[in-house]
């Protein structure tokens, strides 16, 4: 009935269907995840032992830079948009996103943007090598020729994100089924709505930053050059004004995913729904006033350091509320531990550990000892990998039955989980120690006092990398041979996608809006 769909290659080029576009985003993000992961393997191979064995320092800097850019802008962000596309219309009873043609364009910009970025590896002078944070003047005055392609790629990718965010906001505000008030929406929709506002506020600031970089490089301006009356520190302020909300953009949808999954497998409603909404909104608002906690060593006046330290510590409060609410959801529930639940539980535990190192980093006088060391690398990888990525992985396992109508192999899923759990901790936990011992970031070689920690991290990384291939195999086998999924695959699930739609969900759903009570 609602299942006619075009076929062939052009289906994907011209599609305006949110399910198709969601799938494209997810596959694209996974490919980028593997590419960014391959770069991480190069990094960890070089860092396996002291001494320079495999790559030149300049190429190493290209690897760390591109790894960061690809993972942030190519893997995490598009994967979240993929989830939004698949789930938001179904969860609110809408037939599609509000702006389906813009939706198509938002996706297709990305392969072009990343082709541009990746091709810089083959340009003279190599790829960008100044860190994903591209501080001036290293990036403006001393960057390789490919820097201009980097700027163009960032602009393109930024436009994609902004258009995606507009689409989410308009969809959520204007296309909810009758009876679906804002406070009845699934929390995933809430977290994405708030994320979309963060995106439209800060992606333009990133665009401004790289534009200023471009004019400094080629059009005679001196925004970030002291000789012309500018200030390199100004770059950091403008960048991190984007950069800090950006990290919340990367995690808020994962909070939403986990808030859907844990109630299902606890067979109990999410504890404190309205607090979860307010906490998410508070985190988003606070994220605008903490940016300079990335800059404690820059020579900021004490008054500034104090303000940013205190504001940053404040964010721990709503974040803590969310963690406690997840725990309270499980408390006295009736728990089972299918793969999505395992990833979600691991998310709560390991993201919280990342949060602990975050509180430590917020304390400015001690941050002087952590800043720009592997302690920071440990912190953000904990909140990003067992945080954002485990969240997305949990989402894929949870909703794949709905999307594809096929069930994944539960034993294989659990193996994937345990391998991921072991290797992610083996990779990133030792980095806390190498950082505390004094190992700086972004160095291709190190003194032997850091050797053991690096060896364990590299072993963990190789295992973690292989495990992702295993995940790919699981997904491919499911799509090919998976058992037929139930309409309501999970006993404790609720929401329109589970209660009102078959598995797989038809190509067109909710052409007539459902009634929500």
């Amino acid at each position: 009935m609602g299942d006619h769909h075009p076929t062939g290659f052009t289906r994907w080029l011209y599609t305006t269907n949110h399910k198709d576009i969601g799938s494209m985003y997810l596959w694209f993000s996974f490919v980028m995840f593997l590419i960014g992961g391959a770069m991480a393997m190069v990094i960890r191979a070089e860092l396996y032992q002291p001494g320079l064995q495999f790559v030149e320092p300049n190429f190493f800097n290209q690897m760390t830079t591109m790894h960061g850019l690809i993972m942030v802008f190519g893997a995490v962000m598009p994967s979240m948009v993929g989830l939004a596309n698949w789930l938001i219309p179904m969860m609110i009873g809408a037939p599609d996103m509000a702006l389906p043609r813009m939706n198509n364009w938002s996706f297709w910009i990305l392969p072009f943007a990343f082709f541009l970025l990746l091709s810089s590896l083959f340009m003279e002078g190599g790829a960008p090598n100044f860190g994903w944070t591209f501080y001036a003047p290293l990036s403006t005055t001393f960057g390789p020729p490919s820097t201009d392609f980097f700027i163009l790629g960032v602009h393109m990718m930024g436009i994609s994100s902004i258009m995606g965010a507009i689409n989410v906001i308009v969809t959520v505000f204007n296309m909810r089924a009758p009876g679906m008030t804002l406070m009845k929406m699934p929390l995933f929709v809430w977290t994405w709505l708030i994320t979309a506002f963060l995106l439209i506020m800060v992606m333009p600031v990133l665009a401004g930053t790289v534009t200023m970089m471009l004019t400094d490089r080629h059009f005679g301006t001196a925004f970030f050059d002291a000789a012309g009356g500018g200030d390199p520190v100004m770059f950091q302020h403008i960048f991190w004004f984007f950069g800090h909300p950006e990290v919340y953009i990367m995690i808020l949808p994962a909070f939403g995913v986990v808030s859907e999954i844990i109630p299902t497998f606890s067979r109990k409603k999410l504890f404190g729904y309205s607090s979860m909404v307010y906490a998410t909104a508070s985190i988003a608002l606070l994220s605008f006033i903490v940016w300079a906690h990335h800059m404690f060593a820059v020579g900021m006046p004490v008054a500034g350091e104090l303000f940013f330290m205190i504001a940053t510590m404040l964010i721990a409060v709503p974040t803590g509320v969310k963690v406690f609410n997840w725990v309270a959801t499980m408390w006295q529930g009736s728990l089972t531990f299918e793969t999505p639940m395992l990833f979600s539980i691991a998310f709560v535990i390991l993201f919280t550990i990342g949060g602990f190192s975050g509180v430590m980093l917020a304390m400015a006088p001690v941050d002087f000892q952590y800043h720009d060391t592997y302690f920071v690398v440990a912190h953000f990888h904990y909140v990003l990998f067992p945080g954002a990525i485990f969240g997305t992985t949990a989402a894929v396992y949870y909703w794949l039955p709905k999307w594809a109508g096929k069930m994944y192999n539960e034993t294989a899923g659990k193996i994937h989980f345990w391998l991921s759990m072991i290797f992610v901790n083996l990779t990133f936990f030792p980095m806390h120690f190498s950082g505390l011992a004094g190992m700086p970031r972004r160095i291709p070689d190190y003194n032997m006092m850091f050797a053991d920690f690096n060896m364990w991290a590299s072993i963990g990384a190789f295992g973690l990398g292989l495990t992702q291939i295993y995940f790919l195999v699981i997904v491919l086998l499911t799509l090919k041979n998976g058992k037929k999924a139930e309409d309501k695959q999970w006993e404790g699930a609720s929401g329109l996608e589970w209660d009102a739609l078959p598995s797989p969900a038809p190509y067109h759903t909710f052409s007539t809006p459902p009634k929500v009570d």
Partner: protein
Amino acid sequence: MAIRRKLIAGIASLLTFVFNGVVQAASDLNMRPGVTETSNEAFNLHMMVVWVMVAISVVVFGAMIYSFIFHRKSKHPTPAKFSHSTLVEMIWTIIPILILIYLTIPAVKLLIKMEDASNPEMSIQVTGSQWKWHYKYLEHDVDFFSNLDRSLTEKDENYLLEVDNALIIPADTKVRFLVTASDVIHSWWVPDLAVKKDAIPGFINETWTSIPAEHAGKTFRGQCTELCGKDHGFMPVVVKVLSKADFKAWLAQKDEERIAAEKAAAEAAAQSWDMEKLMTLGKEVYDAKCGMCHQANGLGLPPAFPALKDSPIALGPVEAHIDIVVNGKSGTGMAAYGPQLTDAELAAVITYERNAWENNTGDKVQPADIQAFKAGN
């Protein structure tokens, strides 16, 4: 069974975290307390936060593990119905706020103290450049570059942490550092002193330390902590502390050294060097100072580090070649070597570059030529 495995995993991860918190000060796993009053206060604050985090994790993860065991479906088939409790939510909002206040108060005090560089007893200007540090004592006529000692290998204890000229400071003295950079942003860090400050081109930042007398004779090592290009990992910070008396003696010695070096440079400049002598010294200087960017074979890593073999500069007018070596080139990675090498070394390395790799210009650059160039003649 899945539950038992979860339990073991849960306890294991908890213990790992607790173990981290239980580790003693001297342990390899922990941050070092350092040797100054501020570094020890920073360490204590660090430990305080770690303990608080451990305590919170015991409570939170403990509750989760309890649920995994006692609220699993097989043990607890009927889920409770509650999804709300204003009282509980208020409690777990207020308690974290109180904990944060408890942590913030000592943090504020320590931060203000660490950022108070007033009334120093001596000041040193620290300038970061690609890829070395420069130290200038403001009250004395002493300044020098501090380069990575590249003779050490990864098997050596101080690999990547040793320099040719360490920064020497007196113990029991409030030393202020005025940190800046001459190209990109660098950052000067000595973990044992808990001193880290970014070096921003065009601006100065100040920080300070005061090392108790009992640590006289010791050496402390740190690294650059802001990505600054290719050799960011190869510009260590080495600080050696001397007693006040020994420091005075060291200053006197530096004075003598400076006079002797000036004399030697003048003598070398007065001589006329033959090609063999120039090429020998030139190769030595090139390998030590130029080869890491321009490569031993002269092919460089274009476009950031141009080739010198067949290059227009090495084959073109001598004066332009001298200019770029002595003064560097603004906006590029080519630093000014005028202040870093003697006139003889400069003459030799330029001669070497003009004749090696079959450049074969036959040009000889004399130390006197360099001297004349610097004087503007």
